[in-house]
């Protein structure tokens, strides 16, 4: 892992959360983000897992030269770890996580693993004068889960204070949310391109952060979650051809999570079907 990189100043930036080998959604998201005239696109880690043909996602990312940070997946793959370092605690969650990891590990080229090993753990950038700190899980831990219902305002204040940032942009949970504790300060979880948001919809999400131009309060930023429809049936077919678990394919087809459920907090769990 290389040290924190500072990318400079921007007006409108798209953030891609966990891609989980969903190369089809990644392709659509790139088109959509470019059509929205963003001046940067940043990938927040967890490029592999869950989906088929992990190298296809990496090739698209490298081809597009997107700035990217390491998620726990890239840490694990580049260091040859035995598991994905996702941070699950339940045996069933771990069982499925291990299936994904073993599949992804054996199908990711050594060259791509080396590329992952050289990605930074954090990126800093400025949007509309606000200092953004980009991380995978949280600024203090690559696999910390920041869920909406478990990330209270006082804790957000502490993170911003400890890490000298106005806005923290993260992913890792697979669910997008934001909480601005005051104008231009707070947390944005960019969600995931890899699988739907456990809401019964098949599309996936990325996030745009931009300067709020007409605002009574200086330094206000605007956060937009952008749905990305893609050929999910084709992804499901590819997953079936690769003999990935039917539970994963069901999630792609229905929009409801069937695994990694135990890690969900009470509120987020209640919104899902399983």
């Amino acid at each position: 892992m290389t040290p924190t990189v500072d990318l400079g100043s921007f007006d409108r930036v798209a953030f891609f959360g966990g891609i989980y080998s969903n190369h089809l959604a990644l392709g659509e998201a790139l088109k959509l983000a470019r059509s929205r005239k963003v001046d940067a696109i940043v990938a927040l880690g967890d490029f592999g897992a869950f989906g088929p043909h992990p190298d296809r996602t990496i090739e698209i990312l490298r081809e597009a030269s997107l700035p990217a940070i390491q998620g726990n997946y890239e840490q694990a793959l580049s260091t040859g770890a035995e598991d994905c370092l996702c941070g699950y605690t339940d045996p069933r969650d771990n069982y499925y996580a291990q299936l994904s990891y073993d599949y992804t590990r054996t199908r990711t080229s050594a060259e791509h693993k080396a590329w992952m090993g050289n990605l930074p753990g954090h990126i800093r950038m400025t949007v509309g004068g606000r200092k953004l700190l980009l991380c995978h899980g949280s600024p203090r831990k690559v696999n910390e889960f920041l869920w909406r219902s478990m990330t209270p305002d006082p804790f957000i204040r502490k993170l911003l204070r400890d890490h000298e940032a106005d806005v923290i942009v993260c992913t890792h949970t697979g669910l997008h949310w934001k909480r601005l504790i005051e104008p231009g300060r707070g947390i944005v979880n960019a969600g995931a391109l890899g699988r739907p948001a456990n809401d019964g919809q098949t599309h996936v999400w990325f996030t745009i952060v931009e300067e709020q131009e007409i605002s009574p309060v200086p330094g206000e930023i605007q956060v937009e979650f952008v749905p990305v429809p893609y050929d999910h049936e084709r992804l499901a077919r590819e997953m079936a051809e690769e003999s990935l678990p039917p539970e994963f394919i069901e999630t792609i087809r229905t929009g409801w999570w069937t695994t990694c459920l135990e890690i969900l907090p009470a509120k987020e769990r209640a919104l899902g079907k399983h």
Partner: protein
Amino acid sequence: MSDAVHRPAEPGREYPISPLFALDTLWFQVAGTLCNLQCTHCFISSSPTNHSHEMLTLEAVKRHLAEAEALGVKEYYFTGGEPFLNPEIFEIIEATLKQGPVSILTNGLLIRPDAAASIRQLSDASEYSLDIRVSIDGYDPRTNDPIRGPGTFHRILTGIGNLAAAGLNPVITVTEACEGAGSQEGRLRFLEFLRSVGLTRPRLKVLPLLRIGAEAERSRAYESWETLRGRHLTPEEAGILQCSSCRMVTSQGIFVCPILIDYPDARMGETLGDALGPFELRHQACFTCHVTGFSCRT
């Protein structure tokens, strides 16, 4: 973490140290050591007559919440004894849910339909999660009742049923006092059992036994080799211990963790500010935490 490596202690230090990396989890012993049960494995020996720690008042909780807010605490846990014995429990839940997510550890006996409905209302009114955790010690009265008391198995199930009927999905905890609960088959059997009693999406946590308090008499106390004396923990190993990110508030002050409240040397001060320093892991329960990687959190 059964593969915990044995490393020699730092020179001049008999026991390893657990630094507080950040105060993420704040425990409130809202019911003190007062409980409507007297379980044979209770590691703090709670009972209807154990007043070694008294109930916390709403006012005391609010005082600590103000300090916790400044420190950026991430989540709150309520325990006892039995939290729902506290006459101000609903006000305490409401006040805390304004500031962050709450988990409540209960034996379920006092969760009647009206209490379950109130819990649901408080949960819906907050943007933070409210989790209820109910303890049970087996699949049937035969295994549960000798530990928790005659007739408790059915009363616990009634409480769980009331929560489910109110649309809440409690986490069920079972200790390893329940035979086989730690194994994969044991887990699956338990999940099946929970489905059969009406929890369509059962959530289960299995806890190891801490050989202190009443449990030391029920099965056995720690043996002398079960200690961290002479060991050194890496920062990663220390980071797994809950005392590296939690503190416990009782009527007697601030303790290092929810486990050691009967040990005066585990009391770290009067306010949270007093209790932010490191802790020396002298206690034998610390051995269980280290070798099992166990935490009282969900």
